[in-house]
């Protein structure tokens, strides 16, 4: 029998348990316990890789939410009198700084994951058709312009994966680590408004918006795949709601 006639096992996305960062938080519960009807495609008809990315995104948000929860928990414990009052402010500031740092670290880690899985998605092992593209990712540089309207000093950082090139971008509302802080909206203006066809991220910061670090995802509107992140750091004295 020739080797071509033999049926072989399919190639797999991974062959070992993931015990690292993505399992540091609770995995997204899956209500869909049924197996795939076809290899590599789940019962909802979306690709396994797409699911993996979607779950990664959900996990990413969970990271932030988890720290918010922990911060709230710590605050509650502190308010119960475990510490002297004057220590609370210092603790909470410390906690906020840490949470901001973790969120930034998460974005980096997450982007790395997206890049890796994105590379895998276009690799030869996957039979599912590639998402529609208006231009090959390697053929053009990635550029975005940022229009910032703010009465206070603010720093904007944008990170994009190669997949962002040529994609129609949407930016999720930016979220702070502190649950009580309102979200910050970012609009993406028409590509034609910017030189070289680059998208324009328009960030308008209300005067009364609380200072802090705000993070949000940039996604490809056509595929809903994350292709980048925006971070806005807004200066000012920290105040807390009473």
């Amino acid at each position, binding site marked *: 029998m020739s080797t071509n006639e033999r049926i072989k096992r399919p190639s797999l996305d*991974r062959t070992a*348990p993931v*015990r690292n960062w993505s399992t540091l938080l609770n995995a997204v*519960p*899956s209500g869909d*316990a049924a197996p*795939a009807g076809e290899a*590599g495609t789940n019962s909802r008809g979306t690709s396994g890789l797409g699911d993996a990315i979607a*779950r990664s995104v959900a996990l990413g948000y969970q990271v932030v939410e988890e720290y918010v929860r922990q911060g709230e928990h710590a605050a509650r414990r502190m308010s119960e009198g475990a510490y002297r009052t004057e*220590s609370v402010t210092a603790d909470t500031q410390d906690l906020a700084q840490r949470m901001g740092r973790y969120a930034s670290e998460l974005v980096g880690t997450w982007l790395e994951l997206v890049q890796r899985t994105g590379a895998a998605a276009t690799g030869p092992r996957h039979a599912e058709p590639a998402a529609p593209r208006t231009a090959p990712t390697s053929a053009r540089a990635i550029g975005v312009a940022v229009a910032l309207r703010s009465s206070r000093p603010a720093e904007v950082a944008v990170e994009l994966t190669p997949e962002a090139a040529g994609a129609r971008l949407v930016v999720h509302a930016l979220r702070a680590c502190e649950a009580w802080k309102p979200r910050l909206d970012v609009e993406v203006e028409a590509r034609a408004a910017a030189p070289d066809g680059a998208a324009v991220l328009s960030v308008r910061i209300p005067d009364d918006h609380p200072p802090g670090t705000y993070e949000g995802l940039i996604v490809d509107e056509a595929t809903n795949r994350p292709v980048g992140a925006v971070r806005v750091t807004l200066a000012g004295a920290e105040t807390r709601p009473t």
Partner: protein
Amino acid sequence: MEQSERPIRVAIVGGGCAGVTAAFELTRPEHRGRYEVTVYQLGWRLGGKGASGRGVHGRIEEHGLHVWMGWYENAFQILRECYRELDRDFLQAFIPATTIAVTERDTRGQWELWMRSFPPMEGLPGDIGGAARHPTVRDYIVHVVALVRTLFADVVSRAGEALSAPRVTGVPESAAEALAALVHYGELATLAGITQGLALLEVVITSFTDYPGTILVRFLDAAVANARRLLESRLENDPELRRIWQVIDLALATVRGQIRFGLVNDPRGFDAIDDYDCREWLLLNGAAASSVDSGYLRGLYGLGFAYEDGDFQRPRVSAGVALRGFLRAFFTYRGAIFWKMRGGMGDVVFAPLYEVLRRRGVRFAFFHRLRNVRVAGVSGPGAPDAAHVEALDFDVQAEIRDGQPYEPLVTVQGMPAWPSCPDYHQLVDGDRFRHESWDFESHWDERCVATRSLRVGDDFDLAVLAVGIGAIPYVCRDLVGRDPRWREMVDHVRTVATHAFQLWLRTATSDLGWPESPITLSGFAPPFDTCADMRHLLPLESWPSPPIGLVYFCSVLPDDGDYAEGGSVPARKRELVRALAVDFLRRQAKHLWPRAIDESGEFRWDLLATPVAAMGAGDPAGEGRFATQFWTANVNPSDRYTLALPGSSKYRISPLDATCDNLTIAGDWTECGVNTGCVEAAVISGRLAAHAIARAPRLEDIMGYDHP
């Protein structure tokens, strides 16, 4: 799946938990008949190490003691789906068990029972979605600290101290510094101070990801030292206080170890400490020698058969595997910590699965003994003819009359069950096999009526090797010979023989001095250190005059190297187990059942209920009555229990591994995330094997596979 539109023929060799799980997954309706599955099974019954049979009077006869744990999410999920397909209620097949007991010798050398009940937890094992979650190392640390705090409150109240802990003074700038201050200012000098510190510890761990490990370790050291000093005089005279303290000591050592070894952020999870023995690792992290030798830890070793070569002087288990198992067992169970089957494992698990699989069109080829997995081709990427299984060689142990499928089940008390011996009437030459005592499950009985080779392409396309690891060196000579990883796996993933006996009693165990509530006991005297009250099974048997008590005993069977003269090994080992059991009852039963001993100090053999069939020549007397009970020596290579020795996890091969492009493996000996011998590990491996073939179920849906 590439290449083929016709059904893909999958040969599954071995019908234990792993094999039938793979069959269950591959024949789900969602696959729409994509996989045509045949299970090849040695002898007459499914089950492997979980097989059971019905003997005289419908007696349930097991390989050992099988108790499912509340964290066996995958095993319960598959079984619940199976029961749903049969329109049966799985809750009728299991009984929640909340009490576990361990034993310790007191200063007079007497064994004392220590029982603990575990509260019911939300949900049922195998629930899909909802509260199902994957705990993190941090979650576990928090759980353990909370447990310690609760236990400590118990200690403080027993020690007669007030619980009103003083507030932390000084000007701490953070919770962590508050902890440091507790140590620095000597506030741990009272038990109440330690209690206060434990509450702070919980805050620190829940609040910070990169918590200051040095401070936490310093705190733990100070807390343990202070508490030990304060309690020292009381521990000796208060056994209950001593036991609680031992649990605290062990729990704090695990917290300390998880912090010191940086397990929260280690990408290897608990595998990072796989090279350590669990006891060694606990000592390394500050546990007292007396805690490490406590009944509590011996009980856990006993439940896991964690004795190298069956030697009770060599308790060894990987710290990573043990810690993962302990934490999952105690903090992630659902419903009850234990679930006892209402029937033999064959009746409750394998008969329903067999029925469902038959309905789905799975074929079963019983009486097939695998002789060799023939491998051809070359391993490695780009090889023109990749390594693959070209043939599966079998001995056919018996032919079925009229070429019909073998019907393996019997009915006992209305329940489909597996018999303890084959139905010879269905076999060609069945009478001869019975008269000549063919032992179809013995590794050493190689008699057969024919041989059969299944060839790839002609008879099967893909293969699932789901035999026990002990059998691998005998049936995978090609793979072990050509692939260093397979060679290392069979060298390092070791097994141990086990033995068990069951007693049917004419007296209630409570009348003999045992607790009223049926308990599962571990850490008792060798060579049968684990036992369970199984009286709930008696109504399911069919005795003309039912016994009143039923107790199972089991443990490791020391490897004495006496495997020469193969043919007689099973009989010799069986006689050895009989002698060990009789001696055990004479010497040790009095510790469990004080009233089971007569005035001369001899075990009251008349307590044993004897089957009517055994009384043909008169009711046996004295020690001879033991011969009417059931006992087994699990010495067949594939029946041996899979150990998790320190440093062995890295040698396991995953069902997802593609050394051969048409073969996957399944069994609790594979790299399956759990990596220890248990039903859950076997079921996970079976699901992974299915994933390797069908890319389903999704790895994310295999609960606990992605676990630190």
